């Protein structure tokens, strides 16, 4: 039947329901498994093939050799687009994705994070 106020019933029933929105950041919904968030680098697994650097669309990832068979990874989270192509490209699974997504920082320098034997993904 064509008439004005067709959504009447829905509106009234919503009034008695809980809101669909969440009071972020007090409440938060989790990210699904396999969500592409911040990258994680395991220095022991890296063989220095630099495939990740070659495939990265934005040049956000840098692998540096610090000693014999020891590598350091520097990721610019400001450049990273979280496509996880580096994870696919890595032949030794040294790169992984995590579900961490709240990565905003007040200082641009803090966006560059370093992974090595001592530093586990913090700004230098």
């Amino acid at each position, binding site marked *: 039947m064509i008439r*004005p*106020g067709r*959504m*009447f019933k829905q*509106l*009234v029933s*919503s*009034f008695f*329901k809980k*809101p*669909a*929105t969440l*009071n972020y950041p007090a409440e938060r919904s989790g990210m699904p498994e396999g969500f592409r968030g911040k990258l994680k680098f395991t220095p022991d697994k890296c063989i220095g093939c630099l495939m990740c650097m070659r495939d990265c669309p934005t040049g956000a990832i840098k692998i540096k050799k610090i000693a014999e068979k020891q590598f350091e990874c520097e990721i610019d989270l400001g450049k990273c687009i979280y496509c996880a192509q580096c994870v696919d490209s890595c032949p030794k699974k040294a790169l992984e994705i995590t579900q961490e997504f709240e990565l905003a920082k007040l200082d641009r320098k803090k966006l560059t994070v370093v992974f090595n034997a001592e530093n586990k993904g913090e700004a230098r």
Partner: protein
Amino acid sequence: MIQALFNIIIFPGLLFLFVLALAAEFVDRKLSARLQNRMGPPWFQPLADFIKLLGKENILPCDADVHIFKFMPVLALTASATSFLYIPLWQSKALNSFNGDVIVVLYLLTIPTLTYFLGGWYSRSVYSMIGAVRSLTQLFAYEVPLFMSILASALLANSWNLSEIALFYSQHPGYWLFNFIGFSIALISLLGKLEKTPFDIPEAETEIVAGSFTEYSGKLLAFFRLSIDVEMVVGSSLLAAVFFPFGLGLTPVLGFILYLVKVTFIVCLISFLRTVLARLRLDQMITLCWKYFAPLAFLQVIINLILKGVFLK
């Protein structure tokens, strides 16, 4: 003297009106959010918005007529606040009343719309000017049904005095029920006056940005927004006084609560209507008002004349 000043400035005058206006805005926003399955703002949000706007810079368009541009928000606020004094709230007597004050109240409530027009027109911005013309065009559409439906109620009470109208209905309980058509028409016309959906054509965001208020900012915008809120309370109080004139002889406290319930009910109806309907086009709105609402309001006049002729001899 001090009593009168207290009444005008603090209670139930200006200050009380402002508190009520901000509360009405909160009820409106919160209810519409809850109907849309959202959370809505916290209770202090309208006040916070008001204070924030007061602290912002006033930007004057270089082509605008500065005096009119600055004066209009104040005039809008003054006009709607003044009309509050003549409306009986929880007693059958208003703060101030004289014979014919219902006409004065209706005309005072027209002034804010005129200020939107003048403020928009003298902003000299394309969007403001279109919005200004639209609010004036809309005025001619909803004023007639609104006036007719309120005057129909006055006709039955045989008085042009709001306090006397209220007194009549409290002496003749049950008669206010006959004004149902008039109340519906007046409520819908009030939506047009307050420029709320479906009649928010003069400030249709997706078409003309903010209509008349496009160029307004800072304190001036804060006053305009407050004046709309005040108008909402005054309009609701007027409708409550004219169409729900029961329980006026109660004790002050109970009467006060009853008054708040009535106003909240009308504000909720406004909020509900604006949530459940889409915005109309200007031509559709005018057709609607002249083709359906004006005849219906006229029907109410005829019903009341018959009632008066048959029962109140």
